């Protein structure tokens, strides 16, 4: 390292001082010219809302869902459920390539932040397209949703997802505000084992009992229901579940 002698006074010292000053002043200008348009010192808003813009392009600005059948509502679903789905997409237990790809390299803590964010969103329920099925199919759907089918050991949806079908904290999703095609695709994926959760996969035990006609009926009926008066999920532990799902991944 070269030594700098700082004891020079007078003209030489002033010159050196001026040179340093010029150099310092010019630095940002040169840097600014090099990257005048290529860089910005402005950073994005630190909010979770800005960080999840990659999600809201499809799921709606507040996670309310969109007109597309397959971009479901996220707003207000229990945080544990949303977290489990994000982890399942990241790790491949739930398969939808665009989601698997987006989440592939995100850590648990960040997925939890995203889940918490959408769980606390209170967005109006969208108007859904009217089901195209006949009244008999709707009636069959209503029976399965509200009463189940004892003879075939199929519990009612309301037995676990709550009388108002808004789910239960922390893991049980609400079933309202979703397009019938989306619900039908999820029940089908569960039945065929392409949408799984940790063992025991109690939802699959149930969906394996469902016929295609049952799935059509349940999906149509659920999507025909009006928005709930109170969209909040039922409090944790407030429902005695029809099936026990130990092994849910929530921490």
């Amino acid at each position: 390292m070269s030594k700098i002698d700082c004891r020079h006074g007078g003209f030489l010292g002033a010159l050196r001082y001026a040179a340093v000053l010029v150099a310092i002043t010019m630095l940002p200008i040169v840097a600014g010219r090099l990257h005048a348009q290529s860089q910005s010192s402005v950073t994005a808003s630190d909010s979770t809302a800005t960080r999840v813009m990659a999600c809201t392009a499809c799921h709606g600005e507040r996670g309310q869902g969109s007109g597309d059948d397959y971009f479901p509502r996220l707003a207000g679903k229990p945080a544990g459920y949303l977290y489990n789905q994000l982890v399942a997409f990241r790790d491949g237990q739930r398969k939808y390539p665009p989601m698997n790809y987006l989440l592939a390299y995100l850590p648990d803590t960040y997925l939890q932040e995203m889940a918490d964010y959408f769980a606390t969103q209170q967005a109006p329920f969208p108007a859904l397209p009217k089901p195209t099925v006949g009244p008999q199919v709707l009636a069959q759907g209503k029976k399965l949703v509200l009463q189940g089918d004892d003879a075939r050991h199929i519990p009612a949806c309301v037995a676990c997802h709550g009388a108002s079908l808004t789910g239960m904290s922390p893991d049980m999703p609400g079933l309202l505000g979703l397009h019938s095609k989306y619900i039908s695709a999820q029940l089908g994926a569960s039945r065929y084992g392409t949408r799984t959760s940790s063992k025991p996969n109690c939802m699959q035990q149930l969906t394996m009992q469902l016929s295609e006609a049952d799935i059509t009926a349940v999906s149509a009926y659920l999507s025909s229901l009006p928005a709930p008066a109170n969209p909040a999920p039922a409090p944790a532990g407030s429902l005695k579940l029809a099936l026990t799902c130990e092994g849910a991944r929530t921490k």
Partner: protein
Amino acid sequence: MATPFGTLYSPDISPDPQTGIGAWTPDEFYKMMHTGRTRSGALLYPAMPFAAYTRVTRADADAIFAYLKSVPPVRQKNREQDLRFPYNNRNLLLGWRTLYFKEGEFQPDPSKSSEFNRGAYLVEGLGHCSMCHTAINALGGSSKSETFQGGLIPAQEWYAPSLTSNREAGLGDWSIKDISDLLQAGVSARGAVYGPMAEVVYNSLQYLSDSDIRAMAVYLKALPSTGETAAPNEVQTQDKLRLSPLGKKIYAAQCAVCHGANGEGKGWDFPPLAANQSIQMASSVNPIRMVLNGGYPPGTMRNPRPYGMPPFAQQLSDEEVAAVVTYIRTAWDNHGTAITAEDVNALRSAPLN
């Protein structure tokens, strides 16, 4: 592992004594890494990056072996390779090795700094960067003369940019800080990693020490620059004139909110598009895929909550994607070329995982 030559099945390397490496000695492990031959002496397929690992020191090979011996053993029968004729004949690998394999540990260049040499060792050896960043030719080899000049990664349909051309990912005019940020945090003031490079940062580079990351940056920055992009041809110029107005409109509506009205970006959070080499490269594969598929940079220790880019595949037509990608490749003094709706359509079915 899907390859252009058929499917390769990676063998068990857990410490199981029957199907894994439980019965191996450190000598045998080093010999495999160094010579590219199996324990029994058969020639390894170069999907195993032995052309890079031959440069790894004995001490590092021993450390890797010790780690592998420490993970829980898994007994899993190894599958036969499923390669097309003639690639299913391992003897052909002798030819491949003559062309593309030079056995030997890394030798530091005494005329360079120890930091440069450490970086060279990591990039050329353990990092096996040239496996992707050098074009793979019809024989599945990486030509030495084309090292780090970039190439389309087979079966993944992402383009691994040249590390030597300043028009691509050549780092000649990047600061050491920006290169280090990119490799370790996954984001930088000049751009972010995405696609297969996000996996590299997430699973590997984020854990490197600051000094090793810096050494890699010093070495990469010093790679000699090669190749220049050809000027746009007449058809590309016409395409640009036709597509740019629509592209500009889409940019203002969809992109400017994050990337800025003039493509200036927002620091680490939303990468700049103006003067971003990744967008202007001769290959338009990556910018098209970013618009179609979006993406999050990896969530790393230095950047655990990355900002993300939404996919636009469901929202924009082939023509609209072509327009906006043409716009960002040519606006603000960017010197990329126009692309077409056909280029976009061909990538809609690109694999996402």
